[in-house]
């Protein structure tokens, strides 16, 4: 298990435990966190699980994990920043225990 904190656009934060190996999108869905939609289920086809990795975690989390993720991020509804990731591609590891992600106001 690793702790991940989801911060919504108003600043409200929720911390949940997510199994190592699970991704941050699914962690949100299983815990009823509304800022992540994840409608395609992790198929890299919808860009509705957009999140911003907190500045303190960007080195550990890294940038887009594939060309497909980078390409699809461009169609995200909210502003894309250098810290943007699709949370379905952000897999929880021991090294990410304590990760903080910020969620945009809109996913589409």
């Amino acid at each position, binding site marked *: 298990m690793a702790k991940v904190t989801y911060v919504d656009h108003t600043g409200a934060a929720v911390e949940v435990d997510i199994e190592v190996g699970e991704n941050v999108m699914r962690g949100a*869905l299983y815990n009823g966190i509304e800022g992540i939609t994840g409608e395609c289920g992790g198929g890299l086809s919808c860009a509705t699980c957009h999140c911003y990795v907190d500045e303190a975690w960007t080195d550990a989390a890294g940038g887009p994990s594939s060309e497909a993720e980078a*390409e699809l991020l461009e169609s995200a509804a909210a502003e894309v920043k250098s810290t943007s990731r699709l949370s379905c591609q952000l897999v929880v590891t021991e090294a990410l225990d304590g990760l903080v992600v910020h969620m945009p106001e809109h996913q589409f």
Partner: protein
Amino acid sequence: MPIDAANPVPPVFPRHVGMDQVPAHVPPELIRQSGLTVGPDFLAGPHDFMAAMHEKQPPIYYDVSPMGNMWHLIKHEDALFGLRHPEVFSNEGATPFPRDPSDYFYFIPIEIDPPEHRKYRNIVDPVFSPQGVLRLEGQIRQRANDLLDAIEAKVEAGEGCEYTEDYGRPLPVSVFLDIMGLPQSMRDEFVEWAVQLLHSNSREAMGEAMQKITVYLKSAIAEKKANPDDGVVSRIAHAAPDGVPLSDKEIFGFVCFLFIGGLDTVFATMNNIWLYLAQNPEKLEEIHRRPDDIDKIVEELLRRWSVTFSGRVLEKDYEMRGVQMKKGDRVTFVLPACNFDPDVFPNPKEVDFDRPRKTILAFTVGVHSCMGAHLARLEVKIGLQEWLKRIPKFSVKPGTEIEYRPGGVIGPEHLPLVW
């Protein structure tokens, strides 16, 4: 209104059929008899027909058809919006399969709107996630190769290959049985039931098929309740979200929906793709040359050859593009037409494996996005890879007339191939 999934009741939305049942709020200039899914022009070439809708029809029109009158929406942008707003475009009562009104059930989760919807998806999402379906990869390759063995033997014996029966249908059905934890001995019977339910175009035959499916699935559920295993039927039968076990009707509606959703759509998709490849050997060559690009190849083929529609019912009066729709109106998002929207996919009929990545609508969008999308992608991918390893360049048997039958899932009925 949120529905109570444990206490299903048949919907009360009126069903309008025919020109004399066009509601008064529909402007006469938006009434069409487009022939979508039923007319001769459609059946002569369904995907060409749906691509041409952008030239022939307004973005939103009211279609009058023997299958029921409803609004058709054909723009990609409108589908994204509508399908992502279940509070306007509801799924309740929008699924057209007949059910016994005295033993009514909901198809779960497709007929359940948020927030209840997520509770059901969480039960099966781990199995159907990209990582979950990858666990099936070896087994799918094995099933594909078993079928290819049989095809090679048939061709050697001079019997020829009828693609739909020899590969397009049995492959997804075998995979479905594996994932559900049902015996492979049921394969041919499942195919027959699915074809009768989805292709008979008679409400009576559909009802009969539904009856046979019901009897079988109820006994399978009972068996899994007594003897749990790691298949999906058992997973659903033993699910207890928030500690509350699902009711019998929920379990049945869920399992039954997976049966309907998981079979015919994949066969039709594969049948379309193989027909296209039989007619376009240069694309087949290109696929052979680019093995590392298989994922984007599959995605583009899914865009070009998507097979089905999303039906919804207006939950409230709503205006789009100046068109006033009313609560209770039925709506169909013509997903294949949306995948040909030239504003999003320029030169839309061209199969171009290097298109910029955009949201395709083969699996719909919104909360009701196809839960089997990753499985379907994997089946198409493996189906192609294993076929290409073993079967040389192929073409449609000379003299074959490709036929489509009316229905909500579009693919050629028969596809005899030669090589």
